[in-house]
């Protein structure tokens, strides 16, 4: 787990806008937190191996390499609706983000791509920050089925998740496919809606 100790981390910081020009869905991981992570200014198409990493940025520390959980502060993911932000986190290797609170659109976008955002109490998040910073190689166990997060010392925190979201995540279901199973209902609604507000359908 890697700790990112600042509040209100916005999606511009998670993935700066110049990388949004891509028409692809992948490859954003190397530009995750680009302005904090590198000393030089990043532009699309640059070879990450030739860039100057910022030795002070938390994700560049040797002890956090390979982290799959990001620990963050409140209102994580505020700002724009860009799904490029969860794409970048996932492409980098994160599977879970833990914070006391998330911005609505970001939170929602995470589920759509199978990145799990977990909300824990501020005090619990504080405790995790203290522990992860004190212990190199700190590992958390996240159990989605059980809705729990367990520390190395065996302390466990439970988290909430909507049952439908949990079901789609656990089974890797395609939400569009699921919605299309309701095609008849959508069509019936549409007819009723058209009759009531015909001006919406011109």
């Amino acid at each position: 787990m890697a700790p990112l100790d600042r509040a209100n981390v916005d999606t511009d910081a998670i993935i700066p806008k110049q990388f949004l020009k891509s028409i692809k869905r992948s490859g954003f991981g190397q530009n995750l937190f680009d302005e904090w992570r590198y000393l030089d200014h990043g532009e699309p198409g640059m070879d990450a191996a030739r860039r100057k990493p910022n030795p002070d940025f938390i994700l560049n520390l040797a002890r956090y390499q390979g982290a799959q959980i990001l620990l963050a502060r409140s209102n994580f993911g505020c700002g724009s609706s860009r799904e490029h932000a969860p794409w970048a986190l996932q492409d980098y290797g994160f599977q879970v983000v833990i914070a006391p609170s998330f911005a609505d659109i970001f939170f929602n976008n995470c589920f759509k791509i199978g990145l799990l955002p977990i909300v824990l109490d501020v005090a619990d998040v504080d405790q995790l920050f203290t522990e992860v910073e004190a212990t190199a190689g700190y590992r958390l166990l996240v159990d989605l089925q059980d809705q729990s997060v367990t520390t190395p010392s065996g302390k466990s925190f439970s988290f909430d998740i909507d049952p439908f979201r949990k079901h789609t995540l656990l089974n890797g279901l395609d939400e569009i496919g699921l919605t299309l199973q309701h095609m008849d209902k959508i069509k019936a609604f549409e007819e009723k809606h058209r009759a009531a507000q015909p001006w919406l359908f011109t």
Partner: protein
Amino acid sequence: MHTLYDKLWQSHVVHEESNKPDGMTLLYIDRHLVHEVTSPQAFEGLKLAGRKPWRLDSILAVADHNVPTTRRDYGISDPISRLQVETLDQNCEELGITEFRMNDLRQGIVHVIGPEQGATLPGMTVVCGDSHTSTHGAFACLAFGIGTSEVEHVLATQCLLLKKAKTMRVAIEGHLGHGITAKDIALALIGEIGTAGGTGYAIEFAGSAIRELSMEARMTLCNMAIEAGARAGMVGVDDTTVDYLRGRPFAPKGDLWDKAVVYWRTLKSDEGASFDKTISLDAAQIKPQITWGTSPEMVAAIDGKVPDPSQITDIVKRHDMERALKYMGLAPNTPISEIRPDKIFIGSCTNARIEDLRIAAKVVKGRHIASNIKLAMVVPGSGLVKHQAEQEGLDKIFREAGFEWREPGCSMCLAMNDDRLESGERCASTSNRNFEGRQGPGGRTHLVSPGMAAAAAVAGHFVDVREIY
């Protein structure tokens, strides 16, 4: 008794995944606005799955984020930006989606052109792969930003899976002072409740001061709801709403118009409807607002000072403030009026409508930008706004005052095209986000109203617009 939000929600429910009030609901979407940045992967996903858009006439597309604001006839010089815009053009052409292309007079920022065309109508659910979709709530719509997976979901199914939000009523009572605008209300509110204050809520703006606002001003306010953390902001229908929409190209005509207006007039919260949270601000107390930090909640009034982190007890907050002041190059306790911008940006989906340009023009008329201002630019929200402003001679006023008069687009609101701040440059900006690097790497943004940006341009430092006006 129902709130406006409840009415909008209820009238679009297709299916409920569970019978619990906080379960996921399949909601029907009436209007889908599309721009070039958040759509290519959605169109690709649609194609790969062998699906087609459910309802073409619900979609309106425009390129705004990447387009140049100078010489359009030269095209887009950055090949990556160009490819993104061309990809939108291609997708729209292939699928038969209505798109206003770069050289169409109707092109502009997606949140300016929807209402301008009458493509945003009361009672609609409106979505776009863009967080400032909340703007459209000014028309009593349920309007909110979505991610790219959801763009694909709406394209394929005309629906979205959503969880109902809580409701917040923000009541602004009394009258706004002379020179005070919706932007000041928005910033004052965010200063009060914080950028996460509205998280999980849909905000309805109400009260006598809101009734007195024009549609342009209501759009500015709803636009900034997302900066308060609320995915949607909205205002109930009244005469101002109906008058604005009459005769717009996509608005209904004849009998349909009459029928629509009868329905639209029901789109407001019932007297006595209950909200999960209520906030009240006294309009008369609101002063011109300026952000001093790197989040819209880091805001002060023009007669205020940059705050002093050493006075803050909460450690996380103090750290954030120190980091923000360092980034902004500001010392604690500096009077706000001593801050000197290098550049002025009047534009964005928050403040680039005709009324905004009129206010700014009134301030700069017969004056000139100060010698320390390296660049002052006006970027109208759409081709039609630009045209209208030119009819009124506003372009001339701006040019004579030393401003550049540009082509419509997002421009330096997010600096995806060539318009940007250099590192360390300070900007008085009428946009909505002052995040680190938002207007260019290392750039420093101060969010203000159009009048305040114009006043700073001529004074060379921030100044109370009420003294000039």
